[in-house]
């Protein structure tokens, strides 16, 4: 089991408020991603759940048990750190065995569990090595191994992939998702990378300045952002946000349209502009169109589209996919 409930959780360091007040429900077995820009309080929130930081006010409960004052080890959670935080003087086997040894398990149980974890994570051939002799990806797997042997009620990941190169990040992303499918244990994952959030999460929690902006499934957030912040943060490339006359015409302060919801034509359309940079990704081409008072708009076109720099083009937004935001930044 791993149901986690945060009730009116508040955290401040001295007079600096990091998290004003947060209420959040995490269901058992869910893969929840905390996403937001640097300094939005996502890591602090994770550390509060882990017990590595004291909660200034409010309660945290796991499976109905109030753990607000409990020591980290008493919460039944396991954490994977950004720096891996492996014990450099211990072999891989000893690293993985450490939490079991601390829990006073018998040597036979420890041996069996370490072997099991090593098999799941493809570490069997590296058990006698030290962390210094492993690659980044292998170290991360050892850190995960150390977490899974404890059979925790939830896993906490603090930006675990940010030290890896792009290719490895992609592979490890899949491995962690695969692990979640196998274990079906609650996972809370912190990242500033919205692609990681979109691809891995069952539920995304978007944080900004210590507040929850929106909670929902990846596609829910993508399709129905509740405010400008979520609209601008979720989605890659970003949603085009337009202010001024076009927005006024639609009775909004700001309108938003995603690159794939703009139709591109060389002869007619609603908005006129000239072609700037074109980014060819193979299957898709992203065209940056300078559309006078509307600013520069990013448009998704087919991989085969042929456009010259400076060429005049016309854009037509799909009215059904247009997002309208009021003066308070909230969706209308």
């Amino acid at each position, binding site marked *: 089991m791993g149901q986690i409930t945060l009730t009116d959780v508040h955290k401040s360091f001295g007079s600096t408020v990091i998290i004003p007040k947060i209420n959040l429900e995490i269901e058992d077995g869910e893969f929840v991603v905390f996403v937001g820009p640097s300094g939005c309080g996502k890591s602090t929130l994770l550390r509060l759940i882990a017990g590595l930081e004291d909660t200034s006010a409010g309660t945290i409960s796991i499976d109905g048990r109030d753990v607000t004052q409990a020591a*980290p080890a008493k919460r039944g959670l396991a954490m994977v750190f950004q720096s891996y935080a492996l014990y450099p003087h211990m072999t891989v086997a000893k690293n993985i065995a*450490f939490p079991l040894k601390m829990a006073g398990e018998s040597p036979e149980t420890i041996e069996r569990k370490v072997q099991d974890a090593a098999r799941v994570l493809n570490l069997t051939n590296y058990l006698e090595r030290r962390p210094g002799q492993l690659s980044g990806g292998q170290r991360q797997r050892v850190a995960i191994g*150390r977490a899974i042997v404890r059979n925790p009620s939830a896993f906490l990941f603090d930006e675990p992939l940010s030290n890896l190169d792009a290719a490895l990040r992609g592979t490890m992303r899949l491995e962690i998702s695969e692990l979640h499918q196998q274990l079906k244990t609650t996972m809370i994952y912190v990242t500033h990378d919205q692609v990681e959030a979109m691809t891995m999460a069952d539920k995304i929690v978007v944080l900004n300045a210590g507040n929850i902006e929106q909670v929902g499934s990846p596609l829910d957030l993508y399709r129905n952002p509740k405010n400008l912040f979520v609209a601008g943060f979720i989605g890659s490339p970003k949603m085009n946000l337009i202010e001024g006359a076009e927005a006024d015409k639609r009775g909004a302060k700001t309108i938003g349209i995603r690159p794939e919801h703009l139709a591109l034509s060389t002869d007619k359309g609603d908005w006129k502009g000239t072609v700037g940079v074109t980014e060819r990704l193979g299957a898709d081409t992203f065209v940056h169109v300078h559309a006078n008072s509307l600013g520069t708009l990013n448009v998704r076109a087919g991989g085969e589209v042929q456009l010259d720099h400076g060429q005049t083009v016309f854009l037509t937004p799909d009215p059904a996919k247009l997002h309208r935001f009021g003066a308070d930044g909230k969706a209308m």
Partner: protein
Amino acid sequence: MARSVTTGHKAIATAGAWIVALLIFFPILYTIITSFKSETEAIAGFDLIPSFTTESYAEVQSQYNYFKPFLNSVLLSVGSTVIALAIAIPAAWSMAFSPTRRTKDILMWMLSTKMMPAVAVLFPMYIIFRDLGLLDSRIGLMIMLTMINLPIVVWMLYTYFREIPGEILEAARMDGASLWNEIVYVLTPMAVPGIASTMLLNIILAWNEAFWTIRLTTTDAAPLTAFISSFSSPQGLFWAKLSAASTLAIAPILIMGWFSQKQLVRGLTFGAVK
């Protein structure tokens, strides 16, 4: 662009390093050479080739008791190091892992005590030692040596502990380690190299300390530093014997330093480059 280092530059740099090293080492070398001269040779003037007589050593051994000051030196340097580490490890630990707003000030204040000339407190210290009956006692000197080296020991350990990533200790806490387990299984093994080089350096500093060891002792607690200085006695200077005594005094620490040089260099440059 990387700077290109030609073979010529390297040769000049190497030669320069050797010259500096020899200049620093020369007084020690000359002391050793002089110790193998006869007393007449020794006062005759500068000469690098001795007659290789061991008469000075024989005389030092027969007339003066080398073993007692040697034993005192060992006891004082090891004893003061043990006390200093016992105080400094918890101090540096708390400053490194739970710093407060005043931690930096405390560290600076501790270091500032090293900036004061020792002679400035000679009288008060002497009177305190006299009144407490600590003059010429090993325990008194051990306390003194601990006090003068403690700032450096705390600083060195603090620098070492700071290098241990906090996340590793947090990982240990998540893994269910109690504070005691954290110290035994995680922190100490990671800090052993640092503690070892701090220990070595402190032994050397304590072994070589001459100001207080000479002034606060007469016979019972006198270490090798006092033993050497006793050779510049009213009977006149006996260069060869003084050199023999000096060689005997520095030999143990020189040998120890030689075998532990790798550890020492690491200790002294730790934290300078990541």
